[in-house]
C-alpha cells in the first residue's frame, strides 16, 4: 500500500486501514516467536512477548475504532491484509523486513526495529539518543531517506521511520480535517465502537472513539505503549514501552523506574535461547508434504485464522459483542500452534503456521 499526505477523508481512511494492517502485521511474527518457546521454559520471555502481542491486539482494535469513528469500514478479510512473510511494514519503513521466525536474538532485534522510537518530537531534527543508536546498529543505514520522505508534498509517497511517526501523520491529518470539517469528521455510528467492556488491560484499556479528543487519546496510547515517543522507558501511566520490554531480553535484566536507556538495573531476566522449537522461518504450506497430517493441520490453522479475522471484521462492522468470541478463538489457534510446531521437517527445522490465508 502506498500512502500520500492526508488531505481528505479518503486519505485518512487509507491511513487508518494501513494502521490496522500495520498493527496486525506484527501479530504473526510475535505469535510465532511466542509459541516457539517450549512450554514451561523461558517464562519471563514468554510473558514479555505475550504482553506485547496482546497490546498489539489492543492497538489494532483502537485503530479500527478510529476508522469506524471517521466513517470508514474496517475489513480484515480483504486479500493481502495478512502479508506474506518476510514482509515490509505497511507504513513504508523500507530499511528492514519482518520474518516469521523462532524466538531468538535475531527475532528480538527485528522486534526492536518494529517498536523503535520515533526520531524526535520536532520534525526533521535528528535527536537519536546514544542508547538507542547502540541498540539499532543495523537499522540506520537508510533512515536519512525515510526522514526526508516524510515531509514531501501531498502527492508523493510517504515513508516513515517508525510507527510513532506514522501515527503522528495520522494525528496531524485528523487535526487538519477536523479544522476543515468540524465534528462532521466523526460521522461514524457510535454503536460500532468496541468499548472497554470487550477488552481491557490495566495498563491502558480500550476506549470508544467518538470525537477528536478520544481519537487523539487512542493514538497517544498506541504510540506510547509501542515505542515511547517521548523517549521515556516508562510512559505517563507508568507502563514500560514495548521497545524496552524487548530490550530487557537482550540485556538480560529488567528495567526499573529511573534507569537510563540501555542500562536496566532490575532483577535478572533468565533467557534460554535454546529451549525453543527450531521452527522454519517464513514457512509455506508447500514446505509440508502433500496429504500429510501436518499439512492438514497447517491448512486448518490458516482457515481458523481466516475465520478469526472474519469474526473480528463482523465485530467491527456492527456486532461488537462478537469481539469476545473472536478473542476466545485464540485458544484454538494456540492449540494448533503447538501441534504444528512440534513437527520436525527432517532438515533440522520444525514446522510453523504459514499465515497463507485462504479467501473466498
Amino acid at each position, binding site marked *: 500500500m502506498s500512502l500520500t499526505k492526508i488531505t481528505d477523508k479518503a486519505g485518512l481512511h487509507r491511513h487508518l486501514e494501513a494502521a490496522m494492517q500495520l498493527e496486525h502485521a506484527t501479530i504473526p511474527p510475535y505469535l510465532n516467536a511466542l509459541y516457539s518457546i517450549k512450554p514451561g521454559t523461558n517464562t519471563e520471555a514468554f510473558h514479555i512477548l505475550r504482553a506485547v502481542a496482546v497490546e498489539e491486539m489492543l492497538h489494532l482494535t483502537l485503530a479500527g475504532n478510529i476508522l469506524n469513528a471517521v466513517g470508514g469500514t474496517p475489513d480484515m478479510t480483504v486479500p493481502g491484509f495478512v502479508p506474506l512473510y518476510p514482509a515490509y511494514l505497511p507504513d513504508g519503513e523500507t530499511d528492514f523486513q519482518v520474518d516469521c521466525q523462532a524466538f531468538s536474538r535475531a527475532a528480538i532485534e527485528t522486534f526492536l526495529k518494529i517498536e523503535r522510537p520515533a526520531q524526535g518530537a520536532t520534525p526533521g531534527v535528528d535527536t537519536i539518543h546514544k542508547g538507542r543508536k547502540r541498540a539499532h546498529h543495523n537499522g540506520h543505514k537508510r533512515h536519512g531517506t525515510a526522514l526526508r520522505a516524510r515531509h514531501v508534498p501531498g502527492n508523493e509517497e510517504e515513508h516513515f521511520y517508525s510507527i510513532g511517526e506514522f501515527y503522528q501523520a495520522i494525528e496531524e491529518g485528523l487535526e487538519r480535517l477536523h479544522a476543515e470539517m468540524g465534528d462532521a469528521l466523526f460521522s461514524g455510528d457510535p454503536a460500532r465502537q468496541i468499548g472497554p467492556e470487550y477488552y481491557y*488491560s490495566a495498563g491502558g484499556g480500550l476506549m470508544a472513539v467518538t470525537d477528536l479528543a478520544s481519537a487523539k487519546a487512542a493514538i497517544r496510547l498506541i504510540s506510547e505503549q509501542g515505542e515511547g515517543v517521548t523517549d521515556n522507558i516508562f510512559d505517563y501511566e507508568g507502563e514500560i514501552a514495548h521497545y524496552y520490554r524487548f530490550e530487557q531480553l537482550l540485556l538480560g535484566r529488567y528495567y526499573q523506574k529511573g534507569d537510563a536507556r540501555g542500562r536496566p538495573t*532490575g532483577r535478572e531476566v533468565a533467557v534460554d535461547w535454546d529451549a525453543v522449537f527450531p521452527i522454519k522461518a517464513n514457512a509455506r504450506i508447500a514446505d509440508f508434504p502433500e496429504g500429510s497430517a501436518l499439512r492438514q493441520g497447517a491448512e486448518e490453522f490458516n482457515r481458523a485464522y481466516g475465520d478469526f479475522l472474519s469474526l473480528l471484521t463482523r465485530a467491527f462492522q456492527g456486532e461488537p459483542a462478537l469481539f469476545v468470541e473472536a478473542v476466545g478463538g485464540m485458544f484454538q489457534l494456540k492449540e494448533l500452534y503447538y501441534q504444528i510446531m512440534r513437527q520436525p521437517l527432517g532438515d533440522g527445522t520444525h514446522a510453523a503456521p504459514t499465515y497463507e490465508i485462504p479467501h473466498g
Partner: protein
Amino acid sequence: MTTSGKDPALTSFEAVAGQEFDVVIVGSGVSGAVIAKQLGARGCRVLVLEAGSGNEITVADYEESVQRFYGSQRKDNNSAYANPRNAPMPRDYETRKLPPGASNTDGYLVQMGPLEIDSTYTRVLGGTTRHWEGKALRMLPDDFRMRSLFGQGRDWPLAYNDLDAHYRAAERELGVAGDVEDQQYGGLDFGPGYVLPMRKMPLSYLDRMIARDLDGMEVTLAGETFPLKVRSTPQARNGVPNPAYDEGRGYKPVGAVSTHQEDKGERCQGNTNCVPICPVQAKYDARRTLYAALETDNVQLLAWTVASRLEVDGATGQVSQLEFKTYDDPDAPGHRVGHVRAKVFVLAANAVENARLMLASDLPGSSNRVGRNLMDHMYLLTWALMPKPAGALRGPICTAGIEDIRTGAYRRHQAAVRYSIHNDGWGWATGSPYSDLEHLVEHENRFGAALRQGLIDRVSRQFLLDCMIEVLPDESNRVSVDPRWVDQMGNPRPVISFGATPYTLETAAFSRRLSRRIFQRLGAEDHTHYDPLAPGYVSHGGEGYVLRGGNHWAGTHIMGTSARDSVVDSTQRSWDHPNLYLAGAGSMASIGTANTTLTLAALCFRTAEAILAGLGTHAPAAATTGARA
C-alpha cells in the same frame, strides 16, 4: 496491572529487629493487606510479617506456583504452594476418620474430633485468598441478629447497615463481578442505584440447563414456602467492567501483580481451577492489595517470619512488643529470634493462627473466649449425572447458586443453607476427572477411542450441588494449644476440637432430601454416596452423611458488646489489650451462608478507620469512596 516497575519493599531481619513501627501487622492475607494499604496511604509506618515466602510477587514467581499445581499428584487446595517445614500449613488429605476418643497428630493441625474437619488455610504471601475460590457474597441482615430473631447463636454488636459502606469498599478492593438484580432475596439491600464493579460472570451452560427445569420449584420449610431460582453468584474475578459503577465513572480492573509488567492479568477464561490457583490471575488474591500497600512506600514486608509471642505490660494491658522468628531455609531447622515494638499491633493471621498466637502468648482473654466459638461452614456434597452432556469443566468453579433458603423462620430450629452449582464436575466429591480415568481403565478395561468416549460421556454430564450449611458459635468448638505438640520452630501447633450439632445436621438431612428432589426433577441419575470410613462421616436420624469443611474458620476472637463474653469490640479491638486488634473472620459472631472473605474485608476497612482515629490520623477515604459508587 499492579506494578511500580520497582522491586518490592521486602525488608530483612536485621533492618527490623529491635525497631519500632506505628503499626505491626501479623499476616499478609486479605485482612492484613487491607489494613496495611489503608494505613500506608495515610502515612503510617507499617510492618507486615508473613510466615511464608516473600518471593511471590513477580509473574515468574506466580508461574512457579501454577507449575507446582500442574505437576502435583494430589490436586488439593494447597497444592500450588510450597509448604515450608518452618511454617507448615494444613493439608486436607491429612484428615483421617477418628475412632471415638482418638486424635490425629499427623498433620500440622492436631485434630481431637469428634468431627474431623478437612479445612485448611494457606501460609503464603496473600494468605488463603491465594487458594480461595473467589465467591464474594454479602451476609444477610438476619445473620447479624441470630439471637434476637431466632433465639440461636449470637447477635453482632453491629447491624448489616453499619457495614454497608465497608461492604462497598470491599467490593471495590476485591473487584467483585456480579449483578445486584440477581441478589434481591433474603432482605439483601445494596442501596438505591448501586451496581457492583463488574458485571456478573456469564452463567454456564450447566447453570442454564438447571435453571430451565428448576426455576419456580417450591420448597416448604417450617411452614414457609420458598420458590427456588438459579441466581448468578457474585465473585471477585475479573470480568466485564460495569460502566455504571461509581456513578458512571466505571471500574478499572486490577490485573496481575508484577514488578516487571510481563503480563496484565486477564479476565476469567474459565479454566476451572480457581482453587488452588487461577493460571491467568483473573481471580483476586490479597497480593494485589498488599502490593498497593507496598507502593505507598510506608509499608514494609518481612517474609519467612512467624510471629511467636505477644508480650503484654501487666499494668496497662498494652502489648509492649512482639517476638518473631525468621528462618533462612524454609525446611532446615534454624531461625533467628527478634522483637519489634509498635503503637498498635494487628493480628491478621486467620482465625486459627490468631487464636494460636494469643494462646501461645498465654493470653486466653479475661472472658476466656480466645480460641472458642470456632466456626466453619459444613458442606454436604450431592452429585448426579445429567441426562445429557452439560459442559462440565468449563467456567470458573461456580457461576450460580440457589439462594432463596438463606434465611427464614426455620432458623429457630435448623441451620441456614445455600446451594452452589459446580462447573467443575464431581471433582470435590470424588476426585474427578482423575478418578474417572482410573475407573474406566482399571474397572472397565477401556482404552483408545472407547476410553476417550467414556471420559466424554462420564465427565461432561457431571453435576455437583454443594450444600453450604451454617454453623453456630459453640464454646466447645475450639482452637487450643498444648505443649506436647509443637512445630519444628518450637511454636505450638493448633489443636482443633470440633463437633456438629443437631441444628446443623438437621439441615444436612433436609438438603440431602432436597437434592434428591432436584435430581429427579432434572432427570439426573443420583450418584451421591457417603463412605462411613471417610473423615466427616456423621449419622443423623438413621442416615449417614459426610460433612466437608469450607476453609471458613471463624469465631475464635468473637466480637461482642462486652469484655465478659467476647474478645473484641465492633472495631475488632481487643477488650483486654487496648493497642491490639484481632482482625479477620475470627471476629465474626455468626457466619450465615456467605463465605467469610468479603465480610472480613469489610470489617478490616472499619478497623483501619478505628486505628487511624486512635493514632490521631483522619479516617481513610475508602468507605466514602465506596459509598459514592
